[in-house]
């Protein structure tokens, strides 16, 4: 049986290798045609943008459910200034600012944001699952959000690699795998509550979606961009 096991392992390894090579090469058209590469990048961008839109929609739904639960007082949003843990990340606050920002920086900002939310979302899901106030639907949404953020980050990394491959952006976008661990903490140093987390994430997912759209418009020339 050990022999069979070895063979099975070899087979799986070969498959994995194959998969990786296929993922790496990607384009259907032969290498060298710029038009062909751009098309594929545009498809990638579209896919990523759709994903981010869905992410934002989910976070918005979760936020609405939270508001139903907690009935925040009017202007509770504004009165108490919520400092999200991602506030330290410098992000463009407008369309023009985002358009003025370099592509690399913009990409980096996106990746930073997505990386910063990986752990807090899983933490959110765990805390929501333990509480009795939320139904399973909400806690499942939180879980789905953390998965989606993870996938979106991978997708954006792929797009970044693609862009770097095509020479559209420089290689200054360093690998963010070893990014600083931004622990979600409020101003007072306490851990953020669930509501605050959801609120912050909703905002950040909107940022990511818009940044990706702007980036796409800048990378892939389309009419009206």
């Amino acid at each position, binding site marked *: 049986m050990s022999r069979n096991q070895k063979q099975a392992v070899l087979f799986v390894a070969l498959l994995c290798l194959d998969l990786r090579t296929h993922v790496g090469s990607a384009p259907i058209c032969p290498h060298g045609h710029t038009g062909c590469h751009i098309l594929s990048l545009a498809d990638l961008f579209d896919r990523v*943008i759709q994903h981010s*839109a869905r992410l*934002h*929609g989910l976070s*918005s739904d979760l936020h609405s459910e939270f508001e139903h639960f*907690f*009935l*925040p*007082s*009017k*202007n509770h*949003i*504004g*009165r108490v*200034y*919520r*400092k999200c843990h991602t*506030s*330290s990340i410098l*992000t463009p*606050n*407008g*369309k*023009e600012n985002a358009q003025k920002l370099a592509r690399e920086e913009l990409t980096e900002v996106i990746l930073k944001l997505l990386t910063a939310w990986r752990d807090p979302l899983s933490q959110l899901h765990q805390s929501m699952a333990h*509480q*009795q*106030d939320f139904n399973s639907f909400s806690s499942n949404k939180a879980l789905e959000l953390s998965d989606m953020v993870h996938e979106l980050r991978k997708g954006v990394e792929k797009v970044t690699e693609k862009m770097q491959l095509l020479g559209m952006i420089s290689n200054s976008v360093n690998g963010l795998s070893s990014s600083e661990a931004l622990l979600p903490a409020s101003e007072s140093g306490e851990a953020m509550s669930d509501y605050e987390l959801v609120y912050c994430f909703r*905002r950040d997912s*909107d*940022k990511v979606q*818009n940044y990706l*759209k*702007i980036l*796409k*418009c800048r990378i892939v020339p*389309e*009419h*009206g*961009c």
Partner: protein
Amino acid sequence: MELRTSLSLLCVLLCMLGNQAITPHRDRPEDYTPATHTPEDYTPDTPVLPHFTGCRSREQETFRCWWSAGTFSNLSEPGALVVFFQMKNTPLSDWQECPEYTATVENECYFSKTFTHIWTSYCVQLRATAQNITYDEFCFTVENIVHPDPPVGLNWTLLNVSRSGLNFDILVRWAPPPSADVHTGWMSLKYEVQYRQRNASHWDKLDLESGTQQSIYGLQTDKEYEVRIHCKMSAFHNFGEFSDSIFVHVAPIPSKESVFPTMVLLVSGVVGLLILLMLVIFSQQQRLMVILLPPVPAPKIKGIDPELLKKGKMDQLNSLLSSQHMYNQDTYREDPWVEFIQLDLDDAGEKSGSSDTQRLLGFTRPGPKGDDDSGRASCYDPDLLPDAEGLLAAHCEMEEHHPLVSESGPSTPSPEATDAPFLPFRTQPVGQSWINMDFYAQVSDVTPAGGVVLSPGQQSETPGMNPDEKKKKGEDAGDEEVEKEKKLQLLVVGSDGGYSPEVVARQVESSAPYSPAPENAYHALPPEPGEEPQTWSVGYLVPDGEAQAPYFLPEAPPASVLPPVSDYTVVQEVDGQHSLLLNPSAPQSPACPPNPTKHLPSMPAVPMGYLTPELLENLSP
């Protein structure tokens, strides 16, 4: 946990109430537009403080805020109220005054692009210029106050009209608001189309559409419809203003004549079909019944007509069924044995006055009989045993006188032939079977001489027969059969095996003490007591082909008393009318030697003249 949440809710409620008491805020300032909701519409009696009526952004790049002075008329002068705002960034900025008060619009503060930061919390305050009083504060983020402009270029085209001409479908098209930058993707909009009939109050809403066209189905042709559209940012809840309504109207196309004939045709077709079906059913009722409910097949026997079974007579049935070899009817009628029993009456009755029975039993009827030496054994055959001398004598006489006896089979002096003289009847082929014989006969009368008169059960009556004789004959016939049967039984019982009628005969003839006789023989006693018991045994046909016919052995009655055995009778003689006369008291032929059966011990007289098994035991030698 529940306690905590309830407590927090309570606190929140109190806070809300408190806030409402202090500052007349509205929870969602985004929902209000300055045009529709003005504090002047509300109760003017209570003093209304200056407050913000709302803040809105159209394209997520700039936004505006409006306020109202309330009932404080003195503050309605321009410049009396100022707006301060603060952006909640990491370094909390100071409160700044409204960057631009719109000149054309009263009480409006306009925030340009430079002052508009998306994803940033803002707080605006309404302050009195003179005093240091903050009448109202309102906090928000810009993306949450975005109300897109209405789409432009709303138009409709007719898709199709239904066959009936009553309904139609249209396709509605529009363009996104020009202020919203959808090309770059800065804003992604979702549109909602609403329509209603001209004077209806309720608007029908279609699903949210991301594109720029949508179809409306199921509109009625003779009615006029109003269509409008508005949009919102996807994942947000704030709809913008409605666009201008467009009116849709399609004139009904008169197409009635196409409808009418088809209906008529359909109805007439269905009616005709129904009539045809009814006709078919009624005309072919029988056949349909046969097809639908097939008759159950009756049991059939080959060659037999079932009608005959129902109505035919017994004779026909019998003939039918016999031909089928299914059952044998009573064949005893044609039984040769039966025939054999039937004696030739004419000759016997005319020729001699003596009855056959008498002759059989040895009554001396002197009279010449032709052909005495026709091969019959003579009475004085030395082979014959002295026991059966009486019988022989009777037999001899019978031979001489009885015409039937003349027809008897060969009677040789051989021991086997000893049985032949005892043939009182016509010989018949060997293949006689005793089974077909009628063993029973009815006792009709008892003669004064002590003979029992039998009447035949099923034998045809010959004319001129004496009823007594007839009865006797019948009785005898029945009795002899009974006795034959009994004889069968007794023979089986008494013998040691390997019995043959000849042996019985020999035994009967030879045994002096007549010891086996009581076992083998049985008595048929006449009613008179004191008579000598007379035994007669019935011999059987030996199936090995000997020409021996069943015969009676009317032995000379033993000297003992006749016990009362009621089942049997002794055949004395056979008369001319085919009846057996039973007369135990009839005197034996003197020519014959006395019956050694007289050796039997005397027995008490039994009136019935039958021998019971107990009596048989007593008849020990």
